Structure formats: C-alpha cells, structure tokens
C-alpha cells in the first residue's frame, strides 16, 4: 500500500518531466559529459502485499475494515470489558475462527505471490557489460542495461529491441501471458543500429511509464564518432514487453527501459474495481433492519428493566443483594452497561457465520460453472472461466443484455464470398475445387455478363495481396529460407507442437490480427494471387502467371477504428510508388473520385444487406514528389514524442485522398452456433437484447434478423444519419421530431404494460425494434443545449425500453460503455450484462453489472476483463437461465433463511427476559449459543445453497419464461423478507410460549422431580434446531445424498453433541450447567411430546400454505398432483412450479 502510494508519488514527480533519458549500456554520450544518469527503480517485482513482519497488523487492520468484522469485534470487546451475560468466548471464538481462516487464506495467497515474485526476481539473465556476458539475477537489472534473451525465454523487463539473430532484423514474440493472444507478433529492431553493440553509443528518450500495452513513443539518438547524431523513432513495434516470450528467434539483444514496478505488465497488474451484486445490497438492507430490531430489543429490555426495578422489593430482594460496587455505580452508567449487555445477549441475531456461509457459497458455487462440461468447447479445448465469484447470483437477475456482434453473435470466422471489381460482380463458387481459376470468377446464376478488364482485375488482386499486415506463419522446424516455399507447402504442415491451437483449415498458414485480412488474402489466393510473405521489407506475391513479384513495403498506415481503414505504400519493381487502401465504405467513398462510387456502392449495399462484411479497396499512384512529402510527414510524425497519434492521423488523412476506387469485397461472418436460439431464449426470459456493434447498419441489421432479434413483424424505428437527413431540415430539428414521433408510437400508444411480468406477451402485436448509429447517438447524448440533452436522453431511453431489441451500430468502444452506463443508471437501475469478445468490448464489459467475455479469436482482452468467460455465445443461455437462476434462488433462500433462523433463535431469549426480571439471563447455554450457527444449522443451508435445483436444469432451459419469476430481485424484496421475518417471529413465539406453558408445572418427570432453567432452554433449543432444519428440508426440492447426509447428519450431530456436552464434567468450565440436562430431558415423556408438538405446529402453516396455494393458482388446470418419485425429473409442469415460489411471493406465482 505504502509502497504503491510512494511509487505513485514518485511517478507523479517524474511525470513532470515528460520523458526519461536512458544511456544504452550506461555509456554516456560523448557530447554530454556532464550527464548524470537519473535514478530509476530496480527490476524487483513486488506483487505481494505483506512481509513476515507486517503481516499480522496489516492483515488484521484490513480485515477489521470490513464493517461486519468490525461490528463483531466491538461486540467482543464489550463482552470483555462489561460484565455481560455471555462469556467473550461465545462471540470471540467464531470471530477468531473467521479471522484466522481469512488470514490463513490471505497469507497463503501472499506466500504464493512471494514465491512467484522470487521466481521472477531471481531468474538468471544475461547482461552485456563491457563486451562481457554477465549472468545476473533478474532483480539486479538496471535501466540502460543491455540484455541478451534467448528463444522461448521471457523478457525480464521492458526492452527496446536492438539486435536480432534473424537477418530481417525482426523477432517474434507471443504475449500470451500479457493479453492472452497466442499469435506471433513481429517486432522490429531500431533501424540503423550498429551490429556491434559494444560500440553503440546511443541514448533513448522515451515517455514515462504508462500502462497501455499497445502504446509507446520514444526516440533514439545514435551518436557516431564522426557524424551528426542520428535520430530514430521508437514505437510499440520496437518495444518488447516484460512477460512476453521470444519465439522463432534465436537470440535478441535489447536495452532495458522500464524495470520492475514500472514495466507495463506491472502497471497493468492493478485489480479491477469490485462489482457488487444486487443481492449484496439486499443483504445490507436486511442487516440494517435487523440491527434496528437488535437495538430496539435492547432498548425495550433496558427500559422495562428499570421500570420493573422501581416497584418495591424488586430491585434488590433479600436473597439477591448487590455488591458494594454495584451499589456505587452511577445509575446512568448502569443503564448503559445494561443496554450493552442486552446488545451482547441478542447480538447472535446478526451472525458472523452468515458472511462466511455466503462467501463459501459463492466461492464453491462458482466451481459448478467451471466444471460444467456443456461449457466445454472442443475446438479451443477450454471450458468456462470464472474471474469473480461475487456475481453468480447476478446472472439470474439480468434485464438487459448488451452484445457485441462480430465474434459474439457471429463467429468471426471470415470467409471470402465475393468481390466486385469496377462494378462487376465476381462470385467465388467452390472453395475446395478449382484453384487455377481465371474463369471461376463468375457465378453461374450471375446476371453480370461482362467482366472488368484484366488489368483492373489484377490490380484489385494485387491490392488484396499487398494491403494488409498478414504474416505467413512459419514453423520452427522450417529453416529461414523456406518461407519462399509454396503456400500449399506451408498449408500442409499441419499443427506443430507450439501450443497454438490449430487454426481452422481456411486460415492455416497466415497470422493476422484481424481475421478479415486473412480471409481477403485467402480470397486473393483463390483468384490466383498468392501472398508469399515478407523478406525484409519486401513483400512477395505469386501472380496468376506464376511469376514472383516483389514489392518494397515503404509504409504501413495502420488500421484504427476511428479512421476505419488502412493503407500501405509500396514500391514495385518498376519503380512505381503505389498506395493501396482498404476500409469501410463510409471512410473510403469520400476519399475517392465520385464517379466511380455509384457502381460499387450498389454492390456494397446489396452485400451488406445480405449480412456480409464489406470493404472497399482503392489505390493511387504517388509520384516522387508526393511520396517524398508523405514519407517526410510520416517520419516526422512517427518521431514526435507528443501527440504522436494526432499527428500521424493528420498525415494519414492527408495521404489517403484522391484515390481511385477499384472494387469491394464481401466477407461472410457466419452466425455463431445456436445464436438465434440463444437470443430467442434470452428474450423469452424477459431480457432486452441490445446489439452494440461497430459494424455498419445494413450488416448489423441482417445479423439481427438472422438472430431473430428482429422478427418479420417487428416495426423498426430508425434513428440514423440517413433518416436524419431525409427530412431535408437541420439534423437537430429532425432528431427532435423523430424522437417525439417514435416516443409517441412506442411509449404512449403502447398498451400500458403490467409491471415486469407480462411485458413481452402483451406487446407481441406491437413489436418494436430500434436502430441508432454512433453519430446520432452522440447527437442524442451530447446535444448542443443542456436541457435538450437530458430530454433527448430521456426520450431515447423510454423508446428503447419499450422496444424488444435495440441495435446500435457504428459504435466506438467508448460509446458502447456510454450506452451501458446510461441504461444502468436509468430508472429502476436494471441489471445489465455485456458480452463481447474483443478489445473494443472491454469498456462495456467493465461497465456492465456482469461482464462476459467470449474466448473468441480477437485475443483475450475481453476474457481478462470479464467476470465470466465462456467459449461460445450459445453457452450464455445455460449460464443465465440455468446457472444464474439457480444461483439466485439459492443465495436468496440462503439469505432469507439465515435471517429467519437467527430471528427465531434469539426471539425466545428476548422473551425470556420478561420472565427473569430483565436480568440478561441467557436462555441457552453458551455452547449452544456458539454452536448454533457454526455447527448445528450451518451445513444444511450450505448444502442447500450449493445443490438446490428447485426446478431441474432441463426445464429451466426449456422454459425461458421461468426466468421472469425471479426478475427484479423477486425473492429478496421486502415482501418475501417480511414473510420470512413473520415466520421467524411466529416460530420464536411458539417455541417460547409452548415450553412456557409446559413449565406451568415443572414436575415433568415420572419420578416427580422438577426441571430447572437449563432444561427449559434445552427444550426450546431442541425444538428450534429441529424446526429450522426441517423447515429447510421442506423447502428442499432436490434431495441428493449430500442433502440427506447433511440434514439428518446435523440433527444427529446435535443430539450426539448434546449428550456428549452434558455427559462429562468439563474441567475448563466454571459451571457445569448442562450436566445431564439433555439426557434427563429425554427421559421425560412430556418433553418429547412438547418437542414433537411444537415442531409440527411450527411447520403446519408452511405445509398448509403449500397445499392451499396450489389449486388457486392462475393455471390451476395444469396442476396435477404428482406423487413424489425418486430420481429423474418429472413432468416439466409439476417441477416447473416450484414450491418455493408458490409459497413465498405472489408475483412469481402469477408468472408461471
């Protein structure tokens, strides 16, 4: 903690200096003799929180910062200080137990961290010092050291790549442990560094450490004895991050620039912010109620005590004189200590063990998600991943689902479908058969009679082959030169044992950051143009005529989501400089000559409506002058240390103008398996599905139709740039008009829907879908005037909330989060869920209540930032409808039951005060007080909360509507809470007064002997333990052997313990209160009879409720009495009507 703050301070101090200067190899530059090397932190990684010395105080401090722990500590201290009815052990022991277990767990975790830290810190590395190789421990690395790293080693700190053993001055790394992307990434050496590192004299100027893994700016000054210092720009492509692994390269040398806690990996190590579930909020609310009950109980008792003592003879009867000290104590102090004593006496109403049980339930429960074999995907050989167990129950409460399109609804498995060259359509027929094909370009049913000229065709295909960042994958078995081998050779390699999962057949041999690019390169290959790979800045392609053409790659104008296009500048053999650009139509069309656009736009739009992803391809020739200008601009921008992004963008925009459009491509992104079924199920479960995508509207719309998010009868309300421009008026006005119109349609004219439950059914006739795009959204959200803005936002939200599904297209990542946030904070604060697979979904995954990552193809960033990760979209259905539902029911029942069982535990003790002169006499023995929550009643509820399936999973999956039954925190609202509290009060009253009337004559044994107060308490306690356990048994709908074992085992344990506890004179006890009390109790027939009577009477209303509720339900006709039968699931109808629900909440009752 301290260290971190300190670091932050230091960091802030350093940040004032915008950049850091590093001497490569600690050789100060010749022209700067007085240069004092600045001090940087060492390369020690400290992820551990504690040391041996500070563990105890620090850990205790952190544990007692939790409000619940603190409360129990206070109670314990009160017991120690004030003379209280129960010994400090009763509350100290559970608290000690909880604290110790937590401390051990955290200590163990920290020990593991220490071990991991040590492993990293002591790892030997090779440092080049004055021409010698020195082995050092990793933690001794200093900024400026030149390191040598071998293949398959992990970089010990952030390095600038100086030298690679590969002859093209590149090296390959995988960043699997950083962001999970297991593909090989190419990094480049700093150009023009000398081969002899010994004589290299250079300084590096780079930005201060920052956590963004993909951003880095810096420059390197290279000093040569007889020349002006050369300056080279440094970018992320030169930076090797700590934590990534060197691949396919024998050795590299690099200079350390960020070390230890300043590496990007360490800066990224911060935990995510805690998300809290709605259930937790309910628990806290209930807790407050119980605290009030507790305090008022104590107040009532204290008041009555002093009222009662005022009567003559009651305060100090002769048989119970006070000690001198008691007489001397101030009256108000006495009152206060009495109040505290009552608090202590009743404090069990809020049990320590509830927190432990809830935590255990969440922790253990989450294993069922990881274990579920239905979530196992044979393709990636992974199952579901649970990053946090705090949100299990939230999965059962989702009201809004925000889903990404690409990779989530669709497979992100791109296939080249067709292209359009110069307005002529080329459809590729069959992927497998004919590859030599000039002639396959035309589909058989194609109306297009003539083709574009051969020249155009070839230009287009060359563009496809050149304009990308795809790499040809090579395997370690293959030596360097073999990259020239034919493509099919590489194809034939199959999977090599690198631990990479085998790419699907289609993509084998190519590695790229985006699957579109691979699809395009593969597409070009089918038409005869094969990309062979790079050879040190030269791209080689094999043309139709089997000629190998070489192009020098001059610049890559990288893709980014704002520009939505990328370009390359290449120089052909003949010396022509060409710029090829591909990108989204909206970003290309304005930049090409307009006369070309129309022909192709038609095709693009047709393709888009068919659900294909379209890209347009353009090119231009650059004459020498233009090129020189572009080249200079790019170099300058790349060297900039500040605002590099903005400067680059400006240059890109400047270069990418005046191009000629050659054609467009259409790539199909297939729907995920069962995407439609999943979406249908989610909607059936009452969830609103919003699709948030960066894709264009037509594509996204068609995906929505395909996923059945939009039905044929869905009336689409469109609010996009296009509809805004239709009216021919100012956009703002038109926006207002449309919003009001849609609002009227969707909100005001819609029949008033009944709260929550029947929404989807009643609006079946008026099914609305809403479409909005990014530009319009930003208009809605950031309207010019403040008042309009909030009004638009409101209208927009209301419209959206009345539509079954909403499609937001052309969204920037941040906009996605904005939408999630808006819905999250809207009225009723609905529970939101975001699901996505790519880095662009991270923001919305983090923003939503529950973030789900799909282990897709776009890297692992979404997975890393998610709360749950699943391999496929189809798994979402089971995750929510089955797991989420069950978890919610389980934990809701757990919470309610815990409060209930402690209420009826403490209520008799409260009532007893009225009969013992308000003297804080405990009704139960201390052992019972302590053990009640820890041993006697904890296991059955834990087992229940892990295993209960009030409705079996198949039924839950088949009847999505069941999910609505628990919507809006249905089982933890005040209604059910009130019911449980009443039940607890009823039971408490029954237990106490039942036994009270029995003790009208305490001669309960057939030998005429009488029972005392401990027998009284023991009888009440026995009834209590049996009743609360059997109450749980009544609620259990799913009796596995574990339930049987735990429920009957607990009861047996109680009996056994009572015998044992009462059977021995315990030497450590001051008073042998319970000696033979239990055994004597059992020897009395009356005691048996009253126990049986009270248990039955307590459970009677419960059973009656169950039975009477049944025939009065709305679907009484569908109810059939089903005789209990073992095993298997019964007719869905019967088990679909959960006893639990029928009993506890009216709302849920009407749902089913």
């Amino acid at each position: 903690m301290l260290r971190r703050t300190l670091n932050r301070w230091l960091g802030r101090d350093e940040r004032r200096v915008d950049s850091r200067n590093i001497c490569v190899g600690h050789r100060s530059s010749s022209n700067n003799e007085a240069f004092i090397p600045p001090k940087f932190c060492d390369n020690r990684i400290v992820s551990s929180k504690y040391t041996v010395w500070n563990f105890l105080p620090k850990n205790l401090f952190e544990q007692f910062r939790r409000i619940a722990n603190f409360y129990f500590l206070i109670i314990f201290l009160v017991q120690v200080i004030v003379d209280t009815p129960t010994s400090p052990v009763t509350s100290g022991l559970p608290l000690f137990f909880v604290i110790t277990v937590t401390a051990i767990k955290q200590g163990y975790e920290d020990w593991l961290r220490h071990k991991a830290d040590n492993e990293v810190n002591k790892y030997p590395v090779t440092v080049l010092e004055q021409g010698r190789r020195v082995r050092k421990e990793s933690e001794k690395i200093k900024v400026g050291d030149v390191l040598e790293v071998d293949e398959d080693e992990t970089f010990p700190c952030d390095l600038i790549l100086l030298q690679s053993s590969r002859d093209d001055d590149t090296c390959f790394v995988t960043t699997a442990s950083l962001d999970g992307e297991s593909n090989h990434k190419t990094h480049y050496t700093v150009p023009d560094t000398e081969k002899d590192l010994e004589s290299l004299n250079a300084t590096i100027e780079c930005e201060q450490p920052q956590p963004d893994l993909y951003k880095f700016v810096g420059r390197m000054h290279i000093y040569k004895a007889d020349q002006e210092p050369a300056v080279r720009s440094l970018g992320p492509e030169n930076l090797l991050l700590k934590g990534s692994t060197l691949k396919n390269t024998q050795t590299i040398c690099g200079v350390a620039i960020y070390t230890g806690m300043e590496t990007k990996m360490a800066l990224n190590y911060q935990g995510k912010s805690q998300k809290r579930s709605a259930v937790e909020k309910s628990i806290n609310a209930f807790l407050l109620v119980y605290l009030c009950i507790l305090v008022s109980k104590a107040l009532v008792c204290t008041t009555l005590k002093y009222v009662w003592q005022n009567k003559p003879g009651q305060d100090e009867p002769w048989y119970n004189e006070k000690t001198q000290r008691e007489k001397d104590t101030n009256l108000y102090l006495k009152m206060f200590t009495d109040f505290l004593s009552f608090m202590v006496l009743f404090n069990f109403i809020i049990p320590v063990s509830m927190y432990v049980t809830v935590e255990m339930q969440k922790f253990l429960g989450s294993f069922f998600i990881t274990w579920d074999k239905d979530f196992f995907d044979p393709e990636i050989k992974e199952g579901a991943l649970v990053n946090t167990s705090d949100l299990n129950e939230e999965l059962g409460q989702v009201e809004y689902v925000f889903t990404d399109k690409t990779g989530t609804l669709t497979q992100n498995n791109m296939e080249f479908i067709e292209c359009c060259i110069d307005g002529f359509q080329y459809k590729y027929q069959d992927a497998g058969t004919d590859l030599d094909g000039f002639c396959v370009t035309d589909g058989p049913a194609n109306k297009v009679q003539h083709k574009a000229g051969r020249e155009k065709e070839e230009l287009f295909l060359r563009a496809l082959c050149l304009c990308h960042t795809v790499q040809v994958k090579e395997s370690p078995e293959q030596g360097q030169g073999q990259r020239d081998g034919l493509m099919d050779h590489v194809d034939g390699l199959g999977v090599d044992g690198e631990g990479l999962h085998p790419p699907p057949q289609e993509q084998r041999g190519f590695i790229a950051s985006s699957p579109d690019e691979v699809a395009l390169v593969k597409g070009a290959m089918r038409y005869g143009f094969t990309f062979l790979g790079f050879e040190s800045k030269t791209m080689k392609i094999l043309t139709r005529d089997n000629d190998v053409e070489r192009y020098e790659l001059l610049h890559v104008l990288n893709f980014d989501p704002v520009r939505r296009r990328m370009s390359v500048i290449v120089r052909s053999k003949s010396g022509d400089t060409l710029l090829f650009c591909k990108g989204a139509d909206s970003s290309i069309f304005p930049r090409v000559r307009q006369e070309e656009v129309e022909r192709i736009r038609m095709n693009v739009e047709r393709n888009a409506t068919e659900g294909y992803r379209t890209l347009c391809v353009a090119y231009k020739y650059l004459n020498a002058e233009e090129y020189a200008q572009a080249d200079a601009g790019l170099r300058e921008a790349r060297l900039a240390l500040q605002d590099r992004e903005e400067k680059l963008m400006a240059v890109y925009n400047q270069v990418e103008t005046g191009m000629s459009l050659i054609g467009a491509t259409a790539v199909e992104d297939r729907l995920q398996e069962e995407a439609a079924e999943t979406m249908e199920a989610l909607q059936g479960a009452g969830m609103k599905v919003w699709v948030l995508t960066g894709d264009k509207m037509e594509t996204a719309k068609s995906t929505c139709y395909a996923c059945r998010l939009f039905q044929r009868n869905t009336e689409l309300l469109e609010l996009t740039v296009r509809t805004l421009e239709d009216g021919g008026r100012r956009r703002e006005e038109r926006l207002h008009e449309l919003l009001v119109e849609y609002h009227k349609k969707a909100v005001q004219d819609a029949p008033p829907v009944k709260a929550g439950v029947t929404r989807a059914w009643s609006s079946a006739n008026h099914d609305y879908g809403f479409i909005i795009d990014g530009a319009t959204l930003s208009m809605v959200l950031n309207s010019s005037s403040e008042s309009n803005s909030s009004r638009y936002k409101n209208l927009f939200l209301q419209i959206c909330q009345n539509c079954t599904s909403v499609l937001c297209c052309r969204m920037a990542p941040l906009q996605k989060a904005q939408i999630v946030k808006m819905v999250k904070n809207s009225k009723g604060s609905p529970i939101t869920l975001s699901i996505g697979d790519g880095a662009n979904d991270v923001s919305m995954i983090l923003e939503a209540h529950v973030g789900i990552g799909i282990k897709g193809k776009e890297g692992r960033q979404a997975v890393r930032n998610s709360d749950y990760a699943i391999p496929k979209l189809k798994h979402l259905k089971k995750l929510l409808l089955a797991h989420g539902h069950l978890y919610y029911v389980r934990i809701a029942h757990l919470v309610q039951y815990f409060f209930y069982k402690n209420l009826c535990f403490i209520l008799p003790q409260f009532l007893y005060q009225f009969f013992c002169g308000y003297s804080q006499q405990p009704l139960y023995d201390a052992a019972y007080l302590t053990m009640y929550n820890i041993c006697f009643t904890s296991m059955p509820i834990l087992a229940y909360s892990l295993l209960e399936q009030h409705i079996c999973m198949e039924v839950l999956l088949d009847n999505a509507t069941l999910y609505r039954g628990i919507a809006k925190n249905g089982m933890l609202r005040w209604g059910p809470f009130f019911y449980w509290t009443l039940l607890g009060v009823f039971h408490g009253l029954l237990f106490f007064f039942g036994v009270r009337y029995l003790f009208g004559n305490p001669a309960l044994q057939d030998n005429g002997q009488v029972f005392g107060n401990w027998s009284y308490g023991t009888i009440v306690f026995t009834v209590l333990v049996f009743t609360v356990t059997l109450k749980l048994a009544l609620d259990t709908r799913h009796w596995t052997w574990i339930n049987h074992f735990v429920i009957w085992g607990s009861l047996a344990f109680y009996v056994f313990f009572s015998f044992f506890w009462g059977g021995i004179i315990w030497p450590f006890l001051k008073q042998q209160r319970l000696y033979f009390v239990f055994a004597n109790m059992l020897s009395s027939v009356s005691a048996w009879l009253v126990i049986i009577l009270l248990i039955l009477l307590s459970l009677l209303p419960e059973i009656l409720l169950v039975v009477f509720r049944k025939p009065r339900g709305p679907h009484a006709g569908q109810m059939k009495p089903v005789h209990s039968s073992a095993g298997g699931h019964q007719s869905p109808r019967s088990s679909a009507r959960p006893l639990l629900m029928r009993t506890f909440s009216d709302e849920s009752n009407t749902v089913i």
Partner: protein
Amino acid sequence: MVKEEKEIANRPDNTAFTQQRLPAWQPMLSAGIVIPGFVLIGLAFIGIGVALFVTSRSITVLEIDYTGIEKDSACFKCSNADVKNCVCNLVFSIDSLFEGPVFFYYGLSNYFQNYRKYAASRDDEQLSGDLDAFTAPSDSCSPYDYNSNDQPIVPCGAIANSMFNDTFVLYRVVNGANKLVPLDGKGIAWWTDYNVKFRNPSVTPLKNAFNNTVKPIFWPKPAYQLDASDPANNGFINQDFLVWMRRAALPDFRKLYRRITDGEYAKGLPAGNYSLTIAYNYPVESFDGRKKVVFSNVSWMGGKNEFLGIAYLVVGSLCVLMSIVMLIVYAKFKFPEED
C-alpha cells in the same frame, strides 16, 4: 499425444456431482400425500391428546397457600418478619384416597431464581468438593463470598445462601390424635447431582473440611448438619440443598420437598383429616412472594399438566379439519382438470 493430454486436463470432469446431476429425490407435496398425512397425524394427535387429557385429569393435586398474608390464614401470625422460630399448623382434609405415591412440593411465586446475577452466584468448584475453593471462594459469589470478618463462606453465593428453610411435618389426624406421616427425603434430586456433579470433600469427619469457614449468613445450621437423621445426606449432597441449587426456570415455581412412599402410605393418603406443621422461616412478603405446599401424584407424563393434552387435542383436530377443508377445496378444483 500431447494434445490429447491437454484436452483431458482441460475438460471438466464428467461426474454427476460436477455436472450437478446427482441422483435426487424431488418430493412434491401434493394433496395425495398431504391429505391422508394430515388425517393420520390429526388422528394420532387426537389419540395422544385424549390419553394426555385423561391422564392429567386423573392426577390429584392439593395446593395450599400458607404465606399468611390474609388474616384468616393459619400462618398469619408468622408472616411478620420479626417473629422468629414461628410454627404454624395447616389443617386440611382429604375426601377420598389420595392415590400414591404422593409427592410433596413447596412452591414459591414472584421469586426470581433465574435472575442472572443470582444464577451466577455460586462456585461449582467448591460444590464439587475442591478444598482450595473453600478458603478462596470464587468472585462470582460476591457479596456472599466472605462474611464481615473476611472468613470464607461455604457454600458461598446467593443461591446457596437463600436456600429454602421452611420445614414441614405431616400428621394424619386419627381419632383426634396426630399420627406422623413418614416423609421420604431421598430421590427428590437428580441422581447425577448427588452422585457426580456435587461432591463433598473427602475429609472425615465432614465437619473438619469446614474448618476456618463460616456457614452462609442466612443458614441456621452449617452445611454438614443439614440432615441430622442421615449423616450421608449432608454437606453439598444434601438433597434439599440440591433441589434448591437446580434453579427454577420461571419466577413461579415448585420444588419437590418429600415423597410419601413409606409403609401404609405407599398406596396413598387415605381419606381423613391431616395437619401440616410448618416451621415458618422463609420470608417472602418483602418482594410480594407467595408460598404454598402442593400434594400431587404423578403419572407417566409427570405432574398434572392440562396444557399438553389440550394442545394435542387442538392441533390434532386442526389437522383433521384442515384435511377435510383441503379435500373439499381440492375436489372442487381437481375435477375440471381431468377433462
């Protein structure tokens, strides 16, 4: 090979437990079970209730208040706290045979034996015969741990100090002459109490163990002289003492005083006149308490207790009633469903 292993390592175990598919019994409470169940339980409860009720009715109880607050009460003269060693006579008659064995209880009301400070005011180590605790009684006994001369009190504490010390002698009036009814003071306390939990120090004679200690302030005689008739019934295992030490649960309570089991009275107290001579020592009027004596016989269910029988009858008939209501409701709603 490597691949397969990896797959096996990653693939979740396909066991019933991990897949949440443990075979399970899923009980459904249905009318088919509940109605017959209710009838059965109801009938059983009514049966037990009748038995309890009849038994309870058959138990004879004779309860006489002798506090002496009322002027016409026999013990009125003793109720004044200033009168020492007061003896009063209660005369009562029994119309028919009071079936035996008859148990003789004394009862106190508005007496808080369950007061927390009072309850804690004892030293179990002392009471288990630990001689160290004789010289230094536990703090919990305070203010009944040392007398004003700083001598340890044994047995210490409020409970022991306030031991009930009225004594009763029962006579049967036969032809005007008082004939002593023998009272049995054995077997009135729990067996485990006088055999295990409470122990006298193993010093003979017992008196020596109490050297340098004083008797509780309220006691007329020291602990080793509680029962003059039986030397084995003295000290901490005196059964009257044990009965007192087992604190009552509620402020109105009765405790077993004697059993009438001997000789001709084993079958019960014959009809006739009786006279109870009471040595009235125990003051109760200061806290509005009442004292009473209770003669009662017991059954298998213990003493007379109407509550249990009535409760069983009520719950039993409730069950039967409910099952009838359920049957009606169920029949009404069930039949349309079958078409």
